[in-house]
């Protein structure tokens, strides 16, 4: 159904034997046969089960708790509330000196307070011999409240939004020239408002924790995007040494940002295990995930554009309001793509946020860019219509040579090429521009296009690589596998770097006892681990060469590292020169293995690593603008009677640097498009503005796309390396959700002549 096209690499560049190939993921068999064990599947002798009691008010104080009925349910071991919970240390304030402080989902010290901050906040946890007993008892805990006035309605609260301040990571505002004046004076202009609703991740695996104490040592099984930070967080909250805390997370059943933070369920499982002295498992219900794990903020945005009659942009204003919880959450970089996409002399960008009495928002696939590109790229389409100009032409007319805001160089930018490839594959020239002009029977057919854009990041990763005398390699790094294919990609990279077969490499990950890996976020994991891995492989080859040179018999005697090629299970002087296998070198030296390590996991090493990382990060940011980008093309069919929208065709053409694994990359790109289709057409968390309560916390009423909603998705990528990134790779996890909603809304306009500026584009908005 889906066609993945891999561009041949230009001649003259050496490609590895494995990097770029569509190799099957190494965990595929374990997952498809059910052998893969997820966090809620670890058996322990004496395992108990927990369930949460959720507050049903948005703000107030607990005045009474009646646990008698709950405690009487057969099999119940403990009913823990703020009245009897042991003290925990509060979540730490965010500190740039300790990045793990970023990982608190909220600032609430659960069950250590009588205060309620959102509808759904856990106010109790029940532990029982069975999950059924725990759930039943949780339903029987009666909690009385004194309600306090709460502000929960985003639409009503927007007036109180405060402009965001800039941070070194994210500028909250841009003011270049005078955009308002330029737009007022422009020959053609648009000034439009867009809104997007709250969303939830809905990973197929609901959040689950299994926690076991042994004295002050703690083992936690949890599907997580940040095991190292989770370890530090739990150690701090429970006042035990981090070295004794182990977070194990080999399989994460989808995350999309929803498993980046430490949420209530994790902390309370550990607490419950502390109280009962038994291993405790908490598998959240789907509703439990909605009530205790943050989702994507809603947004209200304004985009105003001015252009000359020939389509040269003269002014751009993009402003946004999003919300956080009063107890945590983060501003989203809604206007981020507007900084980089168009060559405009006058730009005003401003993000504002309003804190509400709701659960913190959190990152969800391309936070900021996914909703920001909806507004920006729909507005560009509106301007193209005003100009009577092809929307691709308008974009290419304004494609910048350097960053429009500060003139920095692009590390790599091939948006023109992505558009050219996509337009050809999609058949864009067949589109007739007039709205409603492409009817097919009762179906109104429309074609839309939009730009995808996501910044590329790189964090630090500690990695060890061990080469054994039998030629096998073990890579160790505590990174995360949420389904992207990370272990497979890193094995490909290691195999090529060391010149060993792919099958000879085993990658260990998903365990906080391993060298510390990066948090999986910002589409940065592959590049971050690859950088550490490549460095470790280099070190390793030097060590091996040093071993070889110690012997008078080695053909590598006198060779320098840069003379050598790693291939055929050894080191060789050039393509045809002498050399020998690792097995021979290690065998002669009497060594069972050689190991190399990058980064240190000691406290001092961590601080040093963090300092180095921040220094490199800031240096990089001063020099370059780095991003993945692409062009999204779609065809929609709108029922002329009922307004039902069906996406009938998709072509995504991306510039994501070097592709490590053609198969998993295509999977990531396609998955983002699917999620974007959901965002465009059906997904919306219904939060009752009267109460702050989520009313559709389940998969029957929160409409993610089903198979029948998804057309064949044709994914292409340019496969041109970014010279500033390891192996030239740019992360692919998020870019492909960006631009999707805009492409669909533009196609719907082309089909119907109606602009829907409020997501999701449900049929009632088209009647």
């Amino acid at each position: 159904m889906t066609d993945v096209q891999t561009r041949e690499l230009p001649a003259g560049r050496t490609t590895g034997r494995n990097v770029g190939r569509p190799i099957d993921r190494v965990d595929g068999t374990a997952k498809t046969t059910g052998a893969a064990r997820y966090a809620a599947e670890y058996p322990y002798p004496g395992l108990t089960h927990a369930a949460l009691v959720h507050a049903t008010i948005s703000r107030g104080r607990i005045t009474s708790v009646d646990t008698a009925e709950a405690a009487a349910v057969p099999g119940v071991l403990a009913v823990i509330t703020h009245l009897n919970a042991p003290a925990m240390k509060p979540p730490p304030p965010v500190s740039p000196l300790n990045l793990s402080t970023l990982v608190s989902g909220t600032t609430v010290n659960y069950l250590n307070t009588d205060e309620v901050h959102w509808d759904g906040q856990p106010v109790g946890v029940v532990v029982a011999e069975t999950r059924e007993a725990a759930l039943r008892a949780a339903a029987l805990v009666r909690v009385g409240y004194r309600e306090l006035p709460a502000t929960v309605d985003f639409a009503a609260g927007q007036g109180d939004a405060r402009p965001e301040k800039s941070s070194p990571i994210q500028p909250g505002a841009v003011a270049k020239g005078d955009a308002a004046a330029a737009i007022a004076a422009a020959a053609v202009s648009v000034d439009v408002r867009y809104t997007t609703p709250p969303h939830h991740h809905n990973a197929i695996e609901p959040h689950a924790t299994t926690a076991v104490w042994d004295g002050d040592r703690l083992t936690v099984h949890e599907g997580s995007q940040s095991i190292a930070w989770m370890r530090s967080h739990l150690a701090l909250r429970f006042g035990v040494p981090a070295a004794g805390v182990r977070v194990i997370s080999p399989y994460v059943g989808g995350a999309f940002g929803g498993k980046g933070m430490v949420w209530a369920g994790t902390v309370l499982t550990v607490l419950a295990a502390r109280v009962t002295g038994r291993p405790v498992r908490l598998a959240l219900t789907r509703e439990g995930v909605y009530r205790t794990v943050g989702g994507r903020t809603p947004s209200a945005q304004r985009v105003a554009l001015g252009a000359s009659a020939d389509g040269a942009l003269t002014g751009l204003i993009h402003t946004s309001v999003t919300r956080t919880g009063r107890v945590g959450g983060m501003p989203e970089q809604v206007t981020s793509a507007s900084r980089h996409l168009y060559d405009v002399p006058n730009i005003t960008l401003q993000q504002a946020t309003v804190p509400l009495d709701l659960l913190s928002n959190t990152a969800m696939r391309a936070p900021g860019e996914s909703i920001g590109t909806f507004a920006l790229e729909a507005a560009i389409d509106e301007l193209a219509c005003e100009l009577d100009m092809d929307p691709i032409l308008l974009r290419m007319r304004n494609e910048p040579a350097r960053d429009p805001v500060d003139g920095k160089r692009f590390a790599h930018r091939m948006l023109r090429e992505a558009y050219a490839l996509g337009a050809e594959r999609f058949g864009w020239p067949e589109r007739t521009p007039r709205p409603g002009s492409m009817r097919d029977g009762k179906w109104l057919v429309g074609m839309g296009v939009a730009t995808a854009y996501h910044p590329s990041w790189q964090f630090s990763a500690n990695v060890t690589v061990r080469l054994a005398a039998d030629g096998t390699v073990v890579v160790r790094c505590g990174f995360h596998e949420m389904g992207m294919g990370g272990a497979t990609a890193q094995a490909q990279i290691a195999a090529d770097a060391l010149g060993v077969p792919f099958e000879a490499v085993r990658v260990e990950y998903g365990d906080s006892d391993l060298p510390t890996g990066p948090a999986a976020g910002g589409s940065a994991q592959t590049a971050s681990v690859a950088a550490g891995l490549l460095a470790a492989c280099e070190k390793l080859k030097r060590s091996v060469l040093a071993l070889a040179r110690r012997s008078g018999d080695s053909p590598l005697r006198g060779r320098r590292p840069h003379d050598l090629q790693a291939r055929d299970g050894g080191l060789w002087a050039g393509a045809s020169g002498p050399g020998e296998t690792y097995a021979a070198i290690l065998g002669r030296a009497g060594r069972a293995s050689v190991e190399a390590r990058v980064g240190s996991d000691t406290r001092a090493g961590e601080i040093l690593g963090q300092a180095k990382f921040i220094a490199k990060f800031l240096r990089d940011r001063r020099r370059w603008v780095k991003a993945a980008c692409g062009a999204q093309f779609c065809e929609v069919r709108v029922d002329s009677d009922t307004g039902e929208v069906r996406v009938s065709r998709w072509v995504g053409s991306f510039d994501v640097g070097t592709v490590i694994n053609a198969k998993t990359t295509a999977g990531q790109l396609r998955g983002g498009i699917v999620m974007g289709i959901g965002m465009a057409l059906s997904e919306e968390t219904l939060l009752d503005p009267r109460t702050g309560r989520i009313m559709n916390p389940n998969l029957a009423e929160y409409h993610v796309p089903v198979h029948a909603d998804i057309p064949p998705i044709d994914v292409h990528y340019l496969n041109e390396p970014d010279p500033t990134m390891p192996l030239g790779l740019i992360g692919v996890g998020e870019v492909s959700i960006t631009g999707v909603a805009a492409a669909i809304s533009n196609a719907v306009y082309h089909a119907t002549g109606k602009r829907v500026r409020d997501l999701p584009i449900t049929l009632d908005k088209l009647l």
Partner: protein
Amino acid sequence: MRPFTYLRAPDVATAVRAISAEPGAKFIGGGTNLVDLLREDIEQPGTVIDITGLPLTGVEELPDGGIRIGALVRNSHLAAHRLVTTRYPMLSQAILSGASPQLRNMATTGGNLLQRTRCLYFYDGAAACNKREPGSGCDAIGGFNRQHGVLGVSDDCLATHPSDMCVALAALDATVETRSEHGVRRIPLVDLHRLPGTTPHRETVLAADELITAIELPPPPSGAVSRYRKVRDRASYAFALVSVAAVLKVRDGSVSTVRLALGGVAPKPWRAYAAERALLAAPATEESFTRAAEAELTAATARPGNAFKIELARRTIVATLRDLLAEGSAA
């Protein structure tokens, strides 16, 4: 979920005896609705009587050319049954447009009739709901009511009956057969469900101890064409915003037979009698279809969230009849 006693009834007589002996007991068919309601503590039966072992799993032809469907026939089985696909294709279409294959494999004919509303506030124990807790109020009225009804609703309840199958059955003049200790009853399907009025918790005319045993359909009108059209928020696996079950026969340019029922717009499968009256003997034209739809919908009342349903229903009725007209003339 509260603990309950579980019984398995081997035959109809035992099932009926068991339910009359246990006030507050509930039958369980496929359990695809009841188990959710148990989990949410909305239904609280002390005893659950499993009726899936009852010998009510056949689809039989009746002497008059109609069919009799056992109450325990699974939805997927019914949709695929030859007697249904050949004589009542609209019923197949309706069933297949509902839920998912897995749910349809479990769901039974009787259970489908008695499935309860999907109103978000009915499902949420923290919300006010006159249906769940009589007299507590209705949070849907000032809240999310996009899914809710525009016909037959009251100031106490806006909830819709969510079944697709029932809408087709309403248009096909189905009769429901029940058994209790008091004997056998036959109830026209269109009279099975009540309108909410001031007692939205009373959803059907059935007594608590009545077992649905079968559904009977009269023979389909000869020479008519039929169709079930469901409009929803995604291509599959969503409840109807509006659905239309229509049977149409045109002779000499005029409507000679018409049956029309609506789903997604009312507290019960809604037989559109006013529209039928307007159509019968009228010229089979788009104008007549529109007039008929409007005749039905003049009684509609809407809230801000569901006002679109009136226009959507009008359009869907007209489009469905238009399609049937084309299909009938092509045949």
